[in-house]
């Protein structure tokens, strides 16, 4: 009666499509679990990249080439790289002590909420039509260019205003971030101002980046240094 109950969609596609879907779905789910399970933040970030790639493959399979490319460029290429950059520089790339929890109620709450989410997804899947209602409203895209032309048209006609407003918002956010970071340094005017100018140039001069335990080759000395607030 409902499309969700009939196991048609997977088998109705061609075999290569089904195989591609299965493989990338496994990759996506394995990556997602890895993000949560991995103790090391860098490993988590890498697992996230794996998930993003799996999703990109799924996009390609749906003939959404543009979305796939943007997924890889923006998320895997920029955002996770930024994550890693921050993780490396701030030296948080060590195993977290998970035994001590600053918010004791958050784990039970997380458990309850994830069961709620899982339950609602399953309920959607089994009770109603799949969340959008129909498999496809308009059918396949007519262009050879796939979704690129269609998306371009929509973004620059129907959704022009939201598109431009979003762009302006992002620029404002960037300018504000730069402003917030720069003001105290301009006041300082000391010898360090030179070192701190330009994002990474300043960060490289930061001793924490060099001497954090995760990346240093000397675990013996580092354990000690880590405990000291001011190294001798």
């Amino acid at each position, binding site marked *: 009666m409902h499309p969700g109950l009939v196991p048609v969609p997977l088998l109705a596609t061609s075999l290569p499509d089904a195989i591609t879907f299965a493989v990338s779905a496994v990759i996506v789910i394995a990556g997602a679990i890895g993000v949560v399970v991995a103790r090391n933040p860098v490993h988590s970030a890498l697992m996230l*990249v794996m998930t993003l790639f799996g999703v990109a493959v799924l996009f390609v399979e749906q003939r959404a080439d543009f979305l796939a490319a943007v997924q890889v460029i923006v998320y895997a290429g920029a955002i996770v790289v930024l994550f890693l950059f921050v993780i490396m520089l701030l030296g948080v790339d060590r195993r977290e002590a998970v035994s001590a929890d600053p918010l004791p109620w958050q784990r039970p709450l997380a458990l309850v909420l994830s069961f709620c989410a899982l339950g609602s997804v399953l309920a959607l899947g089994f009770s109603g039509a799949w969340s959008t209602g129909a498999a496809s409203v308009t059918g396949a895209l007519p262009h050879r260019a796939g979704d690129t032309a269609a998306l371009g048209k929509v973004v620059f006609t129907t959704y022009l205003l939201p598109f431009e407003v979003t762009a302006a918002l992002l620029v404002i956010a960037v300018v504000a971030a730069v402003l917030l970071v720069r003001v105290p340094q301009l006041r300082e005017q000391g010898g360090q101002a030179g070192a701190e100018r330009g994002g990474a140039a300043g960060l490289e001069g930061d001793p924490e980046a060099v001497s954090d335990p995760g990346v240093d080759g*000397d675990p013996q000395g580092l354990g000690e240094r880590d405990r000291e607030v001011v190294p001798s």
Partner: protein
Amino acid sequence: MISAIAATLDPLFDHGVGLAVFLIVLIRVAVAFAALMVAVMLMIWFERKLISDMQNRIGPNRAGPFGLLQSLADGIKLFFKEDLMPTGADRRVFLLAPYLSILPAFLAFAIVPIGGLITIAGHRFELQVADPPMGILFLLAMSAISVYGVMLAGWSSGSKYPLLGSVRASAQMVSYEAPLGITIVTVILLTGSLSTRAIVDAQAAHFWDWNLIRLGIVPFLIFMIAVTAEMNRPPFDLVEADSELVGGFNTEYSSLRFALFYLAEFMNTVTMSAIIVTLFLGGPDGPGFPFLRWLWPILWFLGKTFVFLFIYVWLRAALPRLRYDQLMNLGWKWLIPIALGWMLFVAGLRINEAWGLGILGVLVVLVGPALYRAVALGKRAGHLGEPRAAVVASPGLAKRSGLPAGGVPAGAVPAGGVPAGAGGSGPVHAPKPGSGGEEAP
């Protein structure tokens, strides 16, 4: 029988796609792979030989005629070397990084149109591995991914200099991706398609139809600079600056894994030269002759690519390495604004000439002085402090970081891969042998 198996495996064949087409695709992939590998081997030899000529040396001349087999000999030597792993390394990431470095270099070559149309066994196809609808975006995606190899190699080595190299690398590559993308947008604006084949076809026939000339020479120059920085070639090789960082991100690597990094670097050079030719010089476009029609486009493509390979070696011989702040200034204060402005100009020209020239005028009158002012401000701020190396050596910071006031002792990390942990700590903690130590991060 093979076709029967293929038909059961892949309904593609039920829809009229024959085994021949399938085989042709396989052959295309195999040929492109082999050609790229040979090109990389020759490129390594060519670079060493040419740079020797430019420096009044002889260069490799022992293995094979003119030393042609030198890279093969080096490869065999590296293959039989011991594969070392530093104790402080993150095992899995350390093993993964070289492959993350070499894969994007391979894959990006897939979208390069090498020749024109070719007919084999009644099937006409384009001489390129793939022509996906996302086209040139695939290149951007791959160049975005190539950051990971360098970044993770440096981080996972568990040693200082590689980490410094990888931090530099990630900042540099992310910064220069912006001008790279913007100049590609100008090309797309003109072509109206993302497909590399369409980009090449739009430039066919006359050399004044090449994007190099149609777009004005500016996007080409910006693209070339950004690409050089993106693949960490000199003068932008701060990532592996051997006089500052020992070997940079690949310091701790040895044997085959080091060879992979080496290979990836040269493969990137070849691939990116081919991409420049595709985007700005018409790819396989050029005058042909009535006989051997299929050959001339390939020769034109190879010739143009070769010119860029030569230019890259030349740049390496001629230019000193940039300082880090110069690198960032060039990227953020010059390349990105100019590329953006030129993109607006091209977009205006697409509407009509009045718009284009109007936009150019506004840019020159309003944005030019603003840019100049910004650069001047940046320079003034730059002169307030000492250069970075001196800051590390200043007493205040040295106290904070526990460094001896003389800065980091040179050569603290031996090239062989033994991590020197004592470089950053005042009282040197002697490594206690046999006491285990913490697990790798």
